[in-house]
């Protein structure tokens, strides 16, 4: 039996990054049909059809799926669930909202945040905020799961799958979308940003943190700080990354003037790429950094900002 991947499509817009990564995972399980449901999602369906590894795209174009509310989405998925052994979602807030509902309605357990697939019924996932990695097998006939997108590469372009339209399933939805609020700040949220620039005590003062912020703004990144920098009063509390602060896993984490105490590493070690800029070449941060630059941050950071 094949795999159903539920694409993330909100207000007609495909979240291509997360969906394409989940597609890579889903393709390890079998032939993948992709469900594309939203209002005015024809273009999104075409985008999905152009991804490699897609067998076909099922397009449910209806206003009731506009913002992917869990109730109508689950009803829709259930209408085709008997054709699939695996039902896969990207582990976004939307995917994680819908998947457990689908699982419960199918009377199966959900498997959240899958980071590796060992076989059709064996999955690897993080527990305890990534401090432990669990391998589970499931006895359920149908497997409903969300895919931790940071663990998989995006599926490539170049596919040419057929797009089939799919019947809408009537659902008396008890939840109605009202509005989305755009972030007030121009800067992205620390916990959801793709790029984070963090400063440590090496930054030296609250004023010097402007260097960090300038680089972050140039990169469209969120700003973080180590506990030492927060304790020293250089940065506000809610910027703190680490064991007692926020746990982050961006695509790119730039640690500037951060020594790399284990408490800090606990909060960012799952970042895809870590860059460290520190003048102390023995700083522990270099032990986890993919790219280390031994340099005075007061030279290197402005140079980097200017070069971008």
């Amino acid at each position: 039996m094949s795999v159903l991947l539920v694409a993330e499509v909100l207000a007609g817009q495909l979240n291509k990054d997360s969906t394409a990564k989940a597609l890579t995972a889903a393709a390890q399980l079998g032939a993948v049909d992709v469900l594309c449901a939203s209002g005015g999602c024809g273009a999104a369906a075409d985008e999905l059809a152009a991804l490699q590894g897609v067998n076909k795209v099922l397009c449910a174009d209806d206003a009731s799926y506009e913002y992917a509310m869990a109730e109508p989405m689950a009803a829709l998925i259930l209408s085709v669930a008997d054709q699939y052994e695996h039902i896969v979602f990207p582990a976004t807030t939307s995917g994680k909202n819908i998947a457990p509902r689908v699982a419960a309605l199918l009377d199966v357990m959900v498997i959240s945040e899958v980071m590796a697939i060992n076989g059709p019924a064996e999955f690897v996932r993080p527990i305890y905020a990534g401090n432990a990695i669990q391998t589970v097998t499931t006895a359920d006939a149908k497997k409903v799961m969300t895919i931790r997108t940071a663990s998989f590469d995006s599926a490539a372009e170049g596919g040419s799958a057929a797009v089939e339209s799919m019947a809408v399933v009537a659902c008396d939805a008890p939840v109605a979308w009202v509005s989305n609020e755009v972030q007030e700040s121009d800067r992205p949220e620390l916990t959801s940003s793709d790029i984070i620039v963090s400063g440590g005590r090496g930054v030296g003062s609250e004023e010097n943190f402007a260097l960090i912020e300038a680089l972050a703004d140039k990169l469209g990144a969120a700003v973080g700080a180590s506990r030492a920098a927060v304790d020293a009063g250089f940065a506000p509390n809610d910027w703190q990354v680490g064991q007692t602060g926020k746990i982050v896993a961006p695509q790119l984490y730039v640690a500037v003037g951060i020594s790399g105490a284990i408490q800090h590493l606990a909060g960012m070690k799952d970042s895809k790429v870590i860059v460290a800029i520190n003048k102390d070449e023995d700083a522990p941060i270099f032990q986890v950094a993919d790219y280390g630059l031994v340099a005075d941050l007061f030279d290197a950071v402005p140079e980097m900002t200017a070069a971008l």
Partner: protein
Amino acid sequence: MAEEIERDVMEFDVLIVGGGPSGLSAAIRLMQLAQESEQEISVCLVEKGSEIGAHILSGAILEPTALNELIPDWKEKGAPLNTPVGAEKIMFLSETGAVSTPQMFMPPAMHNHGNYIISLGNFCRWLGEQAEALGVDVYPGFTAAKTLYNADGSVKGIQTGDMGIQRDGTPGPQYEPGMELHAKYTFFAEGCRGHLGKALKAHFDLEKDVQPQTYGIGIKELWEIDPAQHQPGLVVHTAGWPLKPDTYGGSFLYHLEDNQVAVGFVVGLDYKNPYLSPFEEFQRFKTHPKIRATFEGGRRISYGARALNEGGLQCLPKLTFPGGVLTGCDAGTLNMPKIKGTHTAMKSGMLAAEAAFEALQENAESPAAELTAFTEKFNNSWVYDELSAARNVRPSFKWGLWVGTLLTGIDQVLLRGKAPWTLQHGHSDHETLVHKDKAAPITYPRPDGKITFDKLSSVFLSGTNHEEDQPIHLTLKDASVPVATNLALYDGPEQRFCPAGVYEYVEDESKQDGSQRLQINAQNCVHCKTCDIKDPTQNIVWVTPEGGGGPNYPNM
């Protein structure tokens, strides 16, 4: 700010500050006595740790004497005494070798037959359950922030710490004022260098007839080791390397159950060299050729540190004052040659409980203000006899390891502690550091991340956590002293004696002249109290942070 507010009040017969062996034993004993005589008694115990056992750290070998008296059926009740002491070894280490002391020359106090290797934290968790089952109101997560006094000068009780005070000292949105706990008797059982105990000693001048207390810092790690290296029940003590002979201290290495080994290092806080780092000495100790193999292929699972009393009988303060008593290590009942304080602390708590119960029986409404009967009971107990026999051991080491060992041999093996003299300790520990220009800097090896570690990765394993937005609980009497004196004269010894990386001298960016300032990372504090003891200027005053803060030791 906090002075004007009206605080809630709760009244008890007996209030106990601290959920360690002495406080919990006192609570249990009070309830037992009340049950035996079919009387009602209200006993409240507050503990600053997030749970009973969270702040408890010890070796530990338990001599079950006091436990046998307190809870004779402890085995049936599931007390976590799982590993009887088996083989025992004492080694004097040189840099590359080791000489073991034959069993016959080991002082009797160091024989551990019949004792158990335990986690004192787990033992206290169990005692806490026993106390609760007997009806004690046990409140972990609440600090005793200050002592309250009656108009007649007697102790009225304590005020619990305010919760939700922000870094700048103002109440935050979750502010919850502490409350007043009043009792006919308040037992201060905070452990070594309790911050209220310290103030009470000064307030009532309890140490006027005794020598200044001396202390040690004990640093401990818990390891899970290669099963091939594991010998359940094995007890190893060492003296000598890496410490110089003029520094008192040594190690312990106890093999528990489940391939676990407790390893620790104690350094007397009367050491002289400001460049000495007890933490680094401990790390270096583990690399000794005779020691290292134990840890090869193993995994460190916990870390912590705690100061301990070493003074013994000649430093024991007056135990009572109107309205309260000091028990256990808050008073200083540890037996140094045995390196054990649990049984004596428990017994002192039990004796205080008996004294208080008798006084309440005589007059429940207004019992005698001062529990002098506690002192009498204490002086007539085996605790006193033990401490008396032990009294000359620690002070003999002020002449160094070799003289100390010889004198201890004479005192303990030949005279069995019955020498007709009593040695003096000399100075308080904060007075012993020499100036930096008279001291030789010590270069410690870099941690390898396998056997030896840095401070921050160590603190990480202690589960230490403090609410971030609160005032710094390592207070300075005078903020200029650290740089002007501690740094200028002693090269900032707090950077080295603190085992948790709380104190750092960093460049003061506001001055732009390369001068330094003291950075206090209060969040790292494992509540060991070493800074309060060893700070040469006695400028650092440890006070309680918000309740529940501090380490969360598992199995320590």
